[in-house]
Each structure stands twice: as C-alpha cells, then as structure tokens.
C-alpha cells in the first residue's frame, strides 16, 4: 500500500500530488481501468442476455437471420481487429521501451485497422439497410417464415454491432489522442500508463467482437451471402 511521502527533491513530474509514489499512481490507474472494463462487460451483458433469451425462444429465426449475414466481410473484420490488437500491444511495448517513433507508427497502424473495420461495417450496414431492407421497424421486409422473429434477430444485430461500432469509434479517437501525445514525446519508460490503459480498452472492444462474430455470423452452416 502507500509508502510514507518521500523527500520531494527529484520526483517524477507526472506524479499527481495526492499520490505518494509513482507506483501507487500507476497501480491505481490500471486498477481503475479494469474496474471500468467490468462495467462495460455488464453494459454489453444486458444485450447478450437479451440475445440469448430470444435465441432460445426463436432458434429457427436466428438460423435464418444468420444465413443473411455477410460471412466474408464479418470474417475479414475479425481478422482486421485481431491485427489491430497486435499493433496495439506492440505499441504499448514500444512505449515501455521508450521507442517514440515505433510507438507513433504502431498506434497509427492501429487507427488504420480500426477505420478499416468501421468502413467494412458501413458497407455491411448499407447492404442490410438499403439493399435488403433488413433494418427493423416499419421498413423491414423479409420473405420467409416468422418475419417478426427474424426482425428481432436484426434488432439485436444492429443494437449489438452498433454499440460495438460506437465503442470502436471512441477507441479510434482515444488512440489518436495518445498517438498525438506520444509523438510529442509525452510517454516513455518512465510513464506509459495512458498508453497501457487505452490498450486495455482497445483489446476489450476486440474481445466483444470475438464473441459477436460467432454469435451472429456462424449460427448456421449455410452462409448465403
């Protein structure tokens, strides 16, 4: 726990006044980030609960809906996000080693992967909404059995991937923010907690997609699109 306050002479300029040591501050920041991530687990969890309940009730419609997902775009997007997690983890590593240029480059590539993900999602959404009229509500069209149940599938698809995409967008913003500060030389081996924490957020959003992918794209063995 806290040490007694040290002599002030040469302490880390990033040490905030209410902390006794840099170690205490870093541990607090990382723990705080994890507490925040579990709130996000529960936030998405509500939708996972709804998904699970309706899948239990309307399994056929879930099969049907899944067959209309863009299997290839979804798979490519999964790979894109995994690549972005690699570059993000590598960026944190680079910061820990004090490699400013590598850090900025890797963060930049992470942003590009993130934007690619969002771009592909936009393509998918355009197809679902405009081309196939699969957005739930009065404009929903589906030829086949149980259209309102399939509509429910699409409600969850848009809600869950929509919130995920929103989190991705925020993530891209956060990565851009720390990329800028990394470029300014703000971080290094002595202080990299913000990079680490943004990394945690980014990986968490990736994990959400790791579950969304099989839950929406891989339900049926038939992939029509």
């Amino acid at each position, binding site marked *: 726990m806290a040490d007694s306050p040290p002599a002030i002479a040469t302490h880390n300029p990033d040490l905030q006044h209410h902390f006794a040591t840099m170690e205490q501050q870093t541990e*607090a920041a990382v723990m705080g980030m994890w507490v925040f991530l579990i709130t996000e687990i529960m936030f998405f969890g509500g939708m996972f*609960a709804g998904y699970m309940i309706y899948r239990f009730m309307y399994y056929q419609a879930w099969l049907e809906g899944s067959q209309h997902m863009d299997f290839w775009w979804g798979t490519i997007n999964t790979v894109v996000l995994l690549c972005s997690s690699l570059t993000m983890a590598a960026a944190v590593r680079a910061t820990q080693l004090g490699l400013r240029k590598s850090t900025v480059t890797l963060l930049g590539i992470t942003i590009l992967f993130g934007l690619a993900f969002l771009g592909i999602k936009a393509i998918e959404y355009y197809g679902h909404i405009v081309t196939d009229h699969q957005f739930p509500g009065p404009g929903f069209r589906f030829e086949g059995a149980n259209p309102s149940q399939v509509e429910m599938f699409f409600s*969850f698809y848009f809600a869950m991937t929509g919130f995920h995409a929103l989190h991705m967008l925020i993530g891209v913003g956060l990565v851009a923010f720390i990329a800028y500060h990394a470029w300014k030389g703000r971080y290094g081996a002595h202080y990299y907690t913000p990079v680490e924490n943004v990394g945690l957020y980014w990986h968490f959003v990736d994990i959400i997609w790791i579950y969304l992918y099989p839950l929406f794209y891989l339900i049926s063995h038939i992939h029509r699109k």
Partner: protein
Amino acid sequence: MATTAVATPERENYLNKEYGITSWLFTTDHKRIALLYLITITFFFFIGGFFALLIRLELLTPEGDLLLADTYNKMFTMHGQVMIFFFLIPAVPAVLGNFLIPIMIGAKDLAFPRINLLSWYLLAIGGCLMIYTILSGGVDTGWTFYTPLSTHFLDTHVIAAALAIFIAGFSSILTGLNFIVTIHRMRAPGMTWARLPLFVWANYATSIIQVLGTPVLAITLMMVAMERIFNLGIFNPQLGGDPLLFQHLFWFYSHPAVYIMILPGMGVVSEIVTCFSHKRIFGYKAMALAVIAIAVLGFLVWAHHMFVAGISLYAAMVFSLLSYFVAVPSAIKVFNWTSTMFKGSVSYATPMLYAFGFIGLFTMGGLTGLFLAALGIDVHVTDTYFVVAHFHYIMVGGMVMAYLGGMHFWWPKISGRMYPEFWGRLAAMIIFIGFNLTFFPQFVLGYLGMPRRYWQYSPEFQVLNVLSTAGATILAVGYLLPMVYFLWSMRYGKPAPDNPWNAAGLEWKISSPPSTFNFDETPIVTWEAYNYDEIPQEVPVGR
C-alpha cells in the same frame, strides 16, 4: 474542548482557501465536490418532495378531483425518478462518502479527483435534463418504465427522462469506481482492511453494486430509447417481444439499487451508534462481511418484483428463497447495533436519535419485505400500498434518517460550526412522528386492498389516506427545519472543536473544517477501529 471566539483570524481550511464560483466549479478537492453534491441533491429533494405533496393532496379525497388521471401518473413517476436517481442514490455516497472516505483512510484525496468532479457534472447535467423533462410535461410511465407502455403507448417525454437517468447513472458508476480504487490503493500506512471504519466498508460494498449493476440499467434504458425511436419490437408482444425481458433487465439493476441506497446509511448508523454508546461496535468482522454479503446476495433476488408478472412458478420459487437469504445479513447488523448499545454509555444527541429511528423503522421495513417475499402473501399485497409503505419505511424511515443523522454527526467537521442541539432533536422527533403517521396507515391500506398508483380510490379508504396526508405535512415541516438551522449555523453557529463528540476515527483528529489536503502529515495508524476504551468520555458538547 475549547471554543474559539469568533473574532480571532480564521485558520486556512478548504472553505476559505479560495473564493469565487470558478474555484468551486473547477475544484478537484473531494470536500468541495461533496458540498456541490449537497446543494444538488437538496435541490432535487425539494422537487421530489413537491411531487409527493401533490400526490398526497390528491389522495385526501376518494375522487380524482385535484388532478387529471394522466397528470397524477406523472406525479408519482416524477416523484420516484427524482427521489431515487437524483437524491437517494447519490445522497450518502456522494456527499458524506466523498467528504469522509479519503480522510477516514488517511489519504489526501480520492484516487481520481478529476473523475470525481466529472461525476458531479454528470449528475448536474442529468439533473438539468430531468428538469427539462419535467418542464416539458413530464413522464407518466411509473419510475419503472415498464414496457410496452413506455415504448409503444405513450407520447410523453420518455426518452428525455431515460437519458437523464442514463447520464446520472454514469455519475454513480464513476463514483463507485473512484471509491473502489481509493479504498484499495490509498490507505495510509497501518490502515489495514480490519481497521477501516464501517462507513468505509459500507461505501465499498455500495460501490461494488454501483459498478456492476448500473451498466445494465444503462443498456436497458438505451434499448427502450431505441425501441421508441426505431419502432423495434424487442419488448413488444405484438412483434414477438417479451415485456418481461425488460423487467428482468430493469430489476437486475433496480433491486441492487435499493442496496446502493441503504448500505451507506447502515455505514452511517454504525459510526453514530459506536460514538454515542462510547463503545466499540459489537462484531466488527460480522458487520463488515454483512455489507459485502448484502451487496452480493442483493444481485440474486431481482425477480421478486415480478412474481405476478408472468415469470414461471419455478423461477418465482427460486427468487423467493433467495430473497429470504438476503435478509439475514441485514438482521445481523440490527442485532449488532443493539448489542453495541448494551452496556454502553449511551447519550442522546441528535445523530443518535436518527440512528434509533433508523434501527426501528428499517427493521419494520425489512420485515415487511419478508412478507412480500412469500409468494402467497405477495399475490395479495403486491402493487398495493403495502409495497409503497414497505419501501418508504426503508428508504425514508431508514435511509433519509441515516442521511440526516450523518449530516448532523459530521456537520461540525464539514462546516466548522455546531448546529443548535435543541432544534436538532426537535426536528428529529417531528420527522419520526410525521413519518410514522404518513406511512403506517399505508400498510393497513395496502392490506385492505387499496392499489398503488391509483388516483381515485374506494371511499372506505379515506380516513387512512387523510391520516397519511396529515403525516406528510408534519414530515415536511420536520425536513424544513434542518435546512433552516444548518444554514443559520454557518453564520451564527458555535465554532466547532475538532472532536465535539469524543469520537474515534481519523476525521476527528483533524481540524474542523479540515484543511485542503486533510492531513499535515500522512498518519500512521497503529490502533484498531473504534478504540473507545482508549478515549476518555467527557460530557459531549451539545448537552
């Protein structure tokens, strides 16, 4: 303890360190943020109270003659939403918790002071949105937002209200996050978990609930909003949706929410009872574990709000059984408070009066919860005034009394002034009498069959309703008194010594009011909590 003459120059403290509105709006000092919260929640208490007044006025007569039916629906909805989300949930944690937790653990501030300020801004913004909702006509869904009424059948400002609560929810989440990290990481040397004041334990348990439960409310409100905007069918039976799914998700948060409301109050009562019995708490370990047990078990019982809604009988039996378990740690706490007083040196200052009120009224409210947890009884009294009385006994008889007790107990520390003890005790008595007169008749009404949320009722219920309204008037007077004399005391109250109550705890070792960084030197704790055997008892200030 010496009292200082008013003429001597004031020592620098967190209140006079800086003046000006920006020094308050941009502060990161946990003590100033606590006062910002105090102003906000007091404001919303008045608003919620105003709606309660209109409800009770309407219910003076059996006919619906004061308000339209739809307007009455708005009254009880807004009363519930404002009181729960903008008063009860923030009250003790954000005012007393914010102020005291860093001091009680020997720290200079919370772990994340800027996030603390952000939490207040979120509550204020959510509050502004709630004011907007009220001014543009209000919401009539009931505070529970049940679907498909809220999603498909009303054209009132449901989304605005949902958004206001969504934003306020994040205030709650961030406060909980801040407390958890603070209590884990910022304790002074020697301040082990086993030496923490029970107020800190209680807020820690509350923070666990805030962090794990509130996000589910957030997503549920989002789903209601999306349902309204995009005309989805997630909760609409006509489109294959299940209204009960909403209720499951809503109550997953809202049941633990009631523990968010009561646990901090229990922490306050533990502090007051030990001080005014001048005795160590009986069963410290049990008390600490009990609040954690309540926090955990509280997450397993939510469907007891849905017994007659259409859940399966087997699920109902499971939730009924679990609901009985959650009563056990609460009962342990009541026994331990009582045992603390036994052979203690009990004195009856205002905070202790509120603590007594809490113990008695919370017990009544809690026991009636057991009645409701029994399936057979619940079928008869659910959605009647029995339920209304039950939760008001806990939330008002329990929580609000604990909050007021805490405000009186720590007022000398917060403001540097003593409140007038005579008026304090008088107000406590008026509140106790007014409260019981308001809510005890409601138990009877509910048992006799008067439904809740009805704007007119069968004439045989009138006498009890009139008694209830009379009680509410007395209660209102009781609540106004502390507002007046607290404000009065800030100018004219006797300057407070550092430890007017001869209480144990780090907060009583620093000055009243504290300086901005709390401690001149980081304390090193070598004593157990509640070491009253080492503290001589003098006659406490305030007779």
